[in-house]
């Protein structure tokens, strides 16, 4: 089943609304973690919060992931090698304190395996063409190695 997650901090109704429309139109089965205990749906399977083991199971058994542009989700996608479609939260719509998710999404646009949806329509296009999505590579970047070296040097000095 396709897995969608909005992270652990805040609900993201714009994403869940869009998924509801798409699931209805395309007859898809989607499990969505919403961070929103009051929300119900007759097309999506909803969970407000999930314990880490269930979250890991849902993530690993999904063909691809749909999510907010949270760093934790991006790193999970890399860890489990799952193609990831992200929709960034926007501060002007009251979806987060600031627009850091737009910055994250802009940063992610060039990364293999991570697909940035600008809105519900591009989200639907990506989902419909999910067969062509590639998983992210698990390899660490040169920049990450520098950071690890810096911390290790500090710790051992």
């Amino acid at each position, binding site marked *: 089943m396709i897995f969608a997650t909005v*992270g*652990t*901090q805040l609900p993201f109704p714009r994403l869940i609304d869009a998924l509801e429309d798409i699931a209805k139109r395309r007859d898809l089965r989607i499990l969505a973690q919403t961070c929103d205990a009051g929300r119900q749906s007759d097309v999506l399977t909803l969970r407000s919060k999930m*314990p*880490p*083991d269930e979250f*890991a199971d849902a993530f690993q058994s999904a063909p691809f992931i749909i999510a907010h542009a*949270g*760093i*934790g*989700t*991006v*790193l*999970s996608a890399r860890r489990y090698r799952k193609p990831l479609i992200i929709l960034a939260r926007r501060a002007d719509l009251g979806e987060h304190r*600031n627009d*850091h*998710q737009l*910055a*994250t999404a802009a*940063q992610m646009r060039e*990364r293999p395996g991570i697909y940035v949806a600008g809105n519900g329509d591009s989200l639907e296009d990506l989902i419909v063409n999910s067969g062509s999505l590639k998983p992210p590579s698990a390899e*660490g*970047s*040169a*920049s*990450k*190695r*520098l*950071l*690890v*070296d*810096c*911390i*290790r040097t*500090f*710790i051992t000095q």
Partner: protein
Amino acid sequence: MAVGSAGGHWQQLLELRDAYVAEDVHYVTTLKGLPEQFNLTNYTIVRDCNRDQKLDMAICAFGLLITALRKRPNVVVTTGALPGLLAIMIGKVIGARTIWIDSIANAEELSLSGQIASRHADLCLSQWAHVAKEGKVQFEGSIL
């Protein structure tokens, strides 16, 4: 002692574990069941908190203090958020060297916790070169 709140902060802490995997590390996070997902056995769960929840903040600080007194870490490393800042403060009190690694999500300025941590931590890293321009905040690479 390595401290990170559940979610992106914790994930970043674990992304960097190569930096401290050779050491005797005690992990601290805020969500039950999370360390098991990373096959960790040396860990403590503390109360999550944000700056609007003073009681949770006190409970979190108490949990961190007890852990720090039991484990006597030489180094406290954290990726945030507020529990990480509390850990830096407690680390200073017990004489540990302290490292704050600001979340890569903070692409425009240091997080609020990071701004305070930068005045106290021995090493304060941003994962963005342009954010690290001020004061003693350094840029030495990023997890991505």
